[in-house]
């Protein structure tokens, strides 16, 4: 192996090492059985959850998501989905830390509006700073802006997660050229969060050198979520292998794979 070949180093986020580069969201599944089966098929070790008000006085025996996804097996990544201000996002992270017995790894997202779920970058930057200063390990959802990505890194976020396209849209990577710039300058793991629609989108992100991808809707809203979870696992692995292998150069002209020498018509 020559020295300049790409080496496979496992995904490391704030000192935690993961063998899978696929992160899976747990929203939108039919029930916790389907969630657990899809999460299992995906091979993920890192799953996102949301923090919400407990339903009071409705069903005391209601099943708990954290029973379906044992913390002994999965690293739980609580998100701040639904927060529109830095203040609410910080409160949500503190609640999550209490809920998960001091666990300090969080996915920060501060949204701008209901229609686009586009990140509010100003509030995201504020929240990131507060959380990092409070000892949180912050994986941050953001727009695909190279300057903002670098700023979030400077603040101390342990991973920067630009959107590929709008949350839940399934449009894939709409701006690979910008993602390329983010990747080129990054010193923390860059993961595509949001927009992945199908395994080829995930493979493309990985081939480009993303450290991982976070997928929810593309699995949960597939006709067969468990099968799609497996497909995403394969895509992420294939994309990563391709990134390490480094693709052939593109050429303007054809180049035969079979030798010219020895042809019967020569």
């Amino acid at each position, binding site marked *: 192996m020559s020295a300049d070949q790409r080496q496979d180093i496992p995904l490391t986020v704030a000192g935690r090492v993961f063998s899978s580069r696929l992160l899976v*969201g*747990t929203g*939108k*599944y039919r029930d916790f059985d389907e969630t657990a089966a899809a999460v299992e098929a995906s091979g993920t070790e890192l799953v996102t959850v949301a923090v*919400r*008000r*407990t339903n*009071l006085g409705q069903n005391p025996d209601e099943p708990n998501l954290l029973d379906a996804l044992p913390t002994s097996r999965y690293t739980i990544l609580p998100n701040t989905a639904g927060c529109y201000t830095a203040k609410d996002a910080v409160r949500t992270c*503190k*609640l999550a830390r209490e809920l998960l017995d001091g666990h300090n790894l969080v996915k920060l997202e501060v949204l701008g509006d209901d229609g686009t779920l586009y990140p509010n970058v100003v509030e995201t930057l504020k929240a990131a700073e507060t959380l990092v200063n409070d000892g949180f390990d912050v994986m941050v959802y953001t727009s695909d802006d190279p300057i903002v990505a670098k700023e979030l890194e400077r603040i101390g976020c342990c991973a920067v997660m630009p959107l590929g396209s709008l949350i839940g849209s399934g449009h894939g990577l709409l701006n690979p050229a910008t993602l390329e710039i983010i990747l080129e300058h990054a010193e923390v793991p860059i993961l595509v969060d949001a927009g992945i629609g199908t395994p080829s989108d995930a493979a493309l992100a990985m081939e480009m050198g993303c450290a991982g991808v976070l997928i929810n809707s593309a699995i949960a809203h597939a006709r067969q979520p468990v099968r799609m979870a497996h497909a995403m696992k394969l895509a992420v692995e294939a994309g990563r292998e391709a990134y390490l292998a480094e693709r052939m150069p593109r050429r303007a002209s054809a180049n035969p794979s079979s030798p010219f020498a020895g042809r019967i018509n020569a």
Partner: protein
Amino acid sequence: MHIQLNGDQREFSSELTISELIDQLALTGRRIAVEVNEEIVPRSQHAEMHLSPGDRVEIVHAIGGG
């Protein structure tokens, strides 16, 4: 005693601690986190901390999300 619980106005007959509130709501032993007036109340303080009239209490748990 009047408190705001998960956004709703609620009346409780007497003074109570967080632990007693959780018990009355049949949430004892559940994986929840509690915030009072926007400050986390660690589990270790649930038994001692008394609620005051007008407190804003949030009780949350984990659900599916991306």
